[in-house]
């Protein structure tokens, strides 16, 4: 016969007895066959305060997680609500209105949408080949590993530099460097509409190049990860059939990593569309539509950054809110597409 003296033991025994009773009741009700009883045993159940803390914590964590998710809906609701007066005032015509006159309270979004899309397109045209090259150089065995890793690290370091500093560099270093090049393009090719205006330094082309510098790390890092997980067998098979290294890259590696590279580019596009400070500092902030890439322009983020703090008229603020709603919707769609692309890829590999 056991002699139970310590109260701790008694407590244990009591809870154990309780569990047994619960088990018996369950067995009686016939929901569980006796064979499954051991699997049903809940050994984490404590007593009193601990159980209460546990319940409370579970609900707290659940509530906070829901709150985090609700932030996105709160954000959408607030921007929609703030833009509503302007939506009523201007309607859908706002999207293709090309005049932006604060004095006369005439507002149209087209110059900004044009500037945003064109500067991001230039950035993608430059950054995709460069980013994929970096990914190839740092994932293939062209050079020894001790050179590859620092290159990958240094390229990703640029993502840590604040965009306002890249803008500062753009103003004082990049623009003076690009101006002779732009002048050359204008002198020789001014019959092409793309280069038909005299360059002044800032403009669409400059901002596209700055954006490209900023999104290369995104494309390089993700594409590198994608290329590193392409199965070795595929590469070996291609090599065994007599392909050279670059034939293997173009016919085997890049096609099998295509969806990942596409996802990386989409993610980079999202970054480029929403990038604010660096673009604001080198685009010239002039709300106009001109086919020339050398001319000044303006993007949605840049007009928000330059005009929001000084906007006084409710209609002006409303128009800016309408613009942010447009940008929000575009970037939301691009980002969801990117997340889904990356997720589809993950499932394929998993």
């Amino acid at each position: 016969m056991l002699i139970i003296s310590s109260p701790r033991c008694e407590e244990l025994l009591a809870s154990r007895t309780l569990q047994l009773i619960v088990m018996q009741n369950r067995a009686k009700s016939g929901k569980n066959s006796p064979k499954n009883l051991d699997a049903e045993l809940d050994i984490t159940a404590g007593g009193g305060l601990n159980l209460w803390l546990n319940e409370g914590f579970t609900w707290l964590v659940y509530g906070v997680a829901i709150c985090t998710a609700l932030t996105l809906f709160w954000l959408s609701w607030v921007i929609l609500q703030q833009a509503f007066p302007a939506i009523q005032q201007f309607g859908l015509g706002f999207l293709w209105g090309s005049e932006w006159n604060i004095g006369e309270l005439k507002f149209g979004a087209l110059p900004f949408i044009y500037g945003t899309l064109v500067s991001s397109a230039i950035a993608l045209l430059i950054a995709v080949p460069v980013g994929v090259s970096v990914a190839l150089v740092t994932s293939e065995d062209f050079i020894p590993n001790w050179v590859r890793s620092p290159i990958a690290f240094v390229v990703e370091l640029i993502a840590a530099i604040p965009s306002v500093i890249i803008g500062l560099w753009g103003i004082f270093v990049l623009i003076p460097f690009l101006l002779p090049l732009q002048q050359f393009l204008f002198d020789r090719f001014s019959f092409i509409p793309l280069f038909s205006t005299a360059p002044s330094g800032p403009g669409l082309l400059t901002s596209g190049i700055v954006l490209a510098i900023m999104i290369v790390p995104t494309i390089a890092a993700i594409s590198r990860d994608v290329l590193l997980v392409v199965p070795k067998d595929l590469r070996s098979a291609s090599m065994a059939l007599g392909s050279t290294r670059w034939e293997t890259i173009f016919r085997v590696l890049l096609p099998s990593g295509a969806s990942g590279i596409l996802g990386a580019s989409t993610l980079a596009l999202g970054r480029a569309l929403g990038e604010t400070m660096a673009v604001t500092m080198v685009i010239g902030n002039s709300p106009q539509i001109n086919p020339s890439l050398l001319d000044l322009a303006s993007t949605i983020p840049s007009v928000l950054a330059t005009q929001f703090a000084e906007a006084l008229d409710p209609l002006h603020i409303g128009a800016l809110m309408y613009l942010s709603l447009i940008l929000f919707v575009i970037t939301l769609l691009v980002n969801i597409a990117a997340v889904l692309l990356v997720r589809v890829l993950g499932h394929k590999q998993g």
Partner: protein
Amino acid sequence: MTNPSSKLETPESIIAELKKPLPIARTFFTYGMTVLAFALTGLALLPLVEILWSILRQGMPQLSLQSITSLPAPVGVEGPNGFGNAIVGTLIMVGIASAISIPFGLLTGIYLSEFGKNSKTASGIRFITTVLTGIPSVIIGVFAYAVVVVTKIAINNGQIFIGREAVDQGIGVPLPGFLGAIANLFNYDINTLSIGVGGFSALAGGFALSILMLPVVALTTEEALKLVPISQRFASAALGATRFQTTFKIVVSTALSGVTTGILLAVARAAGETAPLVFTALFSDNWPDGLFNPTPSLSVLIYNYANSPFPEQNNLAWTASVVLVSLILLISVASRMVTRRR
């Protein structure tokens, strides 16, 4: 089906082809692409090296104790010229952002990793949080403007102002110097009985930064917690621990270094942000004056001074860049050291 050995013999034509060197076009293609890939990689590295070099070359000469402890001098006035106020302002706003986002982010990460796991709710929350990381920072600034700046409530001499009228009430008690800036965080003046919430303020800027940090903290916490082996959770449960005890005493304490790294990376990101601050915290040439007044920050100072026509202000922008980049690198290095200690 003649002689079995003839099967192993390779036809003359194939032997000839194997002995031939690679056609000139294919050789050219191989070497050409290698050169092109390296050229493009060099092109990607060039701007980064140039940016770091420019920051050091243009910013270091003016960097001194005076420049990081004194106020910006008006243009043309001789005297101590610096951006101490912007450093304090950045620290205050990043502090507010951390105070809001770290508890929320941590708990969300714990939910995703420990409680929700692969349930539909958790997948939904994970998806929304991932989407939240991709929202442009300027949009988050607009959100903070609408939520905090415009809904300002001010009580001035017994009168209550709400909304835009309150923004127009320039209230606050300027206290001079470094100590005053820190001591006067809560703007309350007995003489005029004026107090305000919202408006262009450190609070609005900190709120915007917190929305920016929240998804980063949540997702990195989840990743860090997922690395803790499942057997440790089982062991804890087998000893009779509740989920709460397992989560805090086993999972979080094991993954603490990973969680800290995530938080530090989010802090580094917030410290460099400009777009959400330009029209929420605004800027000021004085020391930060309470949480409810326009507050300077390093990034907005760089933006303002980069566009300035005065060379001395442009130079100050470069010096501020040195300080900001050092601050961010310091945080990143700290996060690496935390990871290594494990």
